[in-house]
């Protein structure tokens, strides 16, 4: 964990520096009338201080503590794939519409993340996309794009 604690502490220090600089762009006000930048500025200092403490603690840890790997095997690749699929789905939903985007997402899930038989992959994906569209749209009244840009 030591190695990862050092990395997280450094990332948090960078974040606190960014928040500090951005807060300076806002009106800090005075103590008797604090402005919008007052609270975030002091929070960034607090975050910076705590991150330094974490860094110090990690550096003082014995080396043996850093041996435990965070990611064992190659299953984490599936997590990356899944996250990429979710990001892409969110980005293209308005463009290609709900049924197509959902079918593609389900194919990704059932083909690569939790492999299923071919008929589940393709038929199941289409069924889930269509049935869920009807449920969300008709029963729950959620506005979802059907054709996306194709409808224009």
């Amino acid at each position, binding site marked *: 964990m030591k190695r990862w604690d050092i990395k997280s502490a450094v990332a948090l220090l960078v974040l606190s520096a960014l928040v500090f600089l951005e807060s300076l762009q806002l009106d800090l006000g005075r103590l008797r009338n604090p402005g919008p930048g007052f609270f975030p500025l002091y929070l960034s200092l607090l975050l910076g201080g705590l991150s330094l403490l974490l860094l110090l603690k990690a550096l003082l840890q014995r080396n043996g503590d850093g041996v435990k790997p965070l990611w064992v095997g190659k299953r984490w690749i599936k997590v990356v794939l899944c996250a990429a699929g979710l990001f892409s789905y969110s980005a293209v939903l308005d463009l290609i519409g709900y049924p197509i985007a959902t079918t593609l997402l389900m194919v990704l899930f059932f083909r690569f993340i939790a492999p299923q038989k071919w008929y589940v992959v393709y038929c199941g994906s289409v069924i889930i996309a269509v049935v869920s569209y009807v449920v*969300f749209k008709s029963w729950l009244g959620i506005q979802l794009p059907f054709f996306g840009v194709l409808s224009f």
Partner: protein
Amino acid sequence: MDLLHNLFYGFTVCFEPLNLLACFIGVLSGTLVGVLPGIGPAATISILLPITFKMPAATSLIMLSGIYYGAMYGGSTTSILVNIPGEAASVVTCLDGYQMARQGKAGPALGIAAFGSFIAGTFAVLMIMLLAPPLTKLALEFGPPEYVGLLVLAMTMVTYLSGGSFLKSLIMAVLGFILGTIGIDRIRGVYRFTYGITTLTDGVPLPAMVMGLFGISEVFVNIEEGLISQGEVYQAKLKGLLPSLTDWKNSALPIARGSILGFFLGTLPGIGAIIPTFISYSIEKKLSKNPERFGRGAIEGVAGPESANNSAAMGGLLPLLTLGVPANAIMAMLLGGLLIHGVQTGPLLLKQHPDIFWGFIASMYIGNGMLLILNLPLIGIWVKILKAPYPILFALILLFCLVGAYSMNSNYVDALIMVFFGVVGYLMKKLEFEGPPLVLGFILGPLIEESLRQSLLRSGGSFAIFVHRPITGTFLLLSCIIIVLPLGLSLFNFGRKKLDMLNSRKAKTK
């Protein structure tokens, strides 16, 4: 007399068809997630949060809290039948509940868990009803400085008790505060850290954030663990769900003790429903004439903790409703859900929205009754659900989250924010950073900032206002002790270790 009158008013609100339906859907989905390991009440509340936006505030509160106490009930089923706790507060139930199931006593174990939870839940509702009005009166005396003290103390306790490294939890709380500053400044009306993104002008959307941190990240972890299906479910036919007279005799006092202990511990910020179950179990073991029976199928080991977890889950509602202080991340989500409806919990809730307050209290009576009906005859169905294929389930959970986030503003940016927080939540789990302090910081941060700035305005810029006022001073002193004590102790231990090492080196060289 006033209490009875108010409660009657609450029942008239709760018996409206929509509220009754919301209560039923809440406890049903709560029991379902309690049964299904891998998705907890926090994730479910976050997933269902967007659905409640279109409902009236009282209806949404009734449904969301139903999920919470429903999950407490449902968690016991998997603990007893499969030795897998459906959610963390049912871990202790595994110890004796599963042993009872192996001895062919699964029926009485499930029965006493359901009855114990029902009795504890009813006790907690009575206590909330009795304690809420005087606490509200007290809270009405609070000014901005007192609120700063109270909220800081609540934040500190939750951070301290959230488990894992205290330093990392503190960092998460501060990060939550920073995230809470995004959006429009409520006092001056200035935009902060929005970078031209329209979705961020009202701040980071809470449902997208909690769905990502609790829902999506849990699924990511499950994917990495290989989407493992459940263990072998107890196969023998369940019979005799009603506990015998001897079972009742053995369980009566543990249920009473668990209910009282759970409620009062549950009202304290940060305690949650898990710690009271462990305390209840150890108390029952200590008080038992035959402590060696514990771990081998003692019914007291099921009755006490099951009552304690339900009572504690509901006890957390007392500070939320009366002081506006959420005792844990789930309560913070309930608070967030109400804030979206423009309703602020706290002392004014009872005065300004008596329909929400009393309707909600009455719904808990009705919800507890519904749970008893759901848990006993439907246990067979819950067992079948346990066997649901997770590879299909995970895809549906993710789809529901995506649509839920998108539907808030019919905007893809909300869905992107949710996935972003899903990745952040996954990394936090891997790097051992706790999620609850971040969510609590995010929700309480703007309230603390507002009270802090109002206090400074009132005092002309003097921080002495937080010391001179006795209630604020006491709250802040307690917070300091909670922060400084563990840090001081770890420094002391570190110094002692170094000294021991030096001494042993000296001894070797001699």
